[in-house]
């Protein structure tokens, strides 16, 4: 019930295209859903995050779409650029209360390649 399932495992997109990565969760106690971007040899960096009281959040070319009833959320990268090539992880954390508060459960990761 703690799992977050991410797909696809890898994604190839042409420059200027839209990259879409999907995640699904089971635990309805999750209430914070961040996305991380990781370049080779670096630690993951927080990219954008959403809480379940909104259905969409946009920051520049990055948008999270959230479907609470389906327990799914996705990352959309508009006008994808070669510099966006990285591994992307979705994650989820629990509501306040208890020692697990704030501890993230990560998806399996998606390797995105954007061709010039």
């Amino acid at each position, binding site marked *: 019930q703690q799992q977050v399932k991410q797909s696809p495992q890898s994604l190839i997109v042409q420059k200027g295209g839209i990259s879409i990565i999907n995640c699904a969760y089971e635990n309805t106690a999750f*209430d*914070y859903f*961040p996305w*991380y971007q990781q370049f*080779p*040899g*670096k*630690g*993951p*960096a*927080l990219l954008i*995050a959403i809480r379940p009281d909104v259905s969409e959040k946009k920051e520049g070319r990055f948008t999270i779409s959230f479907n609470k009833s389906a327990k799914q959320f996705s990352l959309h990268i508009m006008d994808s650029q070669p510099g966006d090539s990285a*591994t992307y*992880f979705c*994650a989820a*954390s*629990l*509501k*306040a209360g208890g*020692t697990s*508060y*704030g*501890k*993230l459960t*990560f*998806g*399996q*990761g998606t*390797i995105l390649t954007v061709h010039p």
Partner: protein
Amino acid sequence: EADIYQTPRYLVIGTGKKITLECSQTMGHDKMYWYQQDPGMELHLIHYSYGVNSTEKGDLSSESTVSRIRTEHFPLTLESARPSHTSQYLCASSEGGTGEYFGPGTRLTVT
């Protein structure tokens, strides 16, 4: 600005040696974490701490140990390194229910 530091960045060490991976954060975050990650693969939580003098094992069993004597410092120790410990170790911190901030990682190779 989120500042979390890890040293060393790279370590090559022989089997049986004791090693300590350092992690420090300057944000005053109450929670800190250690993850193990093979290249391009999932992040596996091996230890976490929700405050000084409190540590818990993570989802992935690990032979390493941790301590949290000061808020800003969360070192990880391997008493006797083995080739199976070869991996990247990532430290992170967070405040409450917001996202985790990651350090740059330590790439450990045990020969």
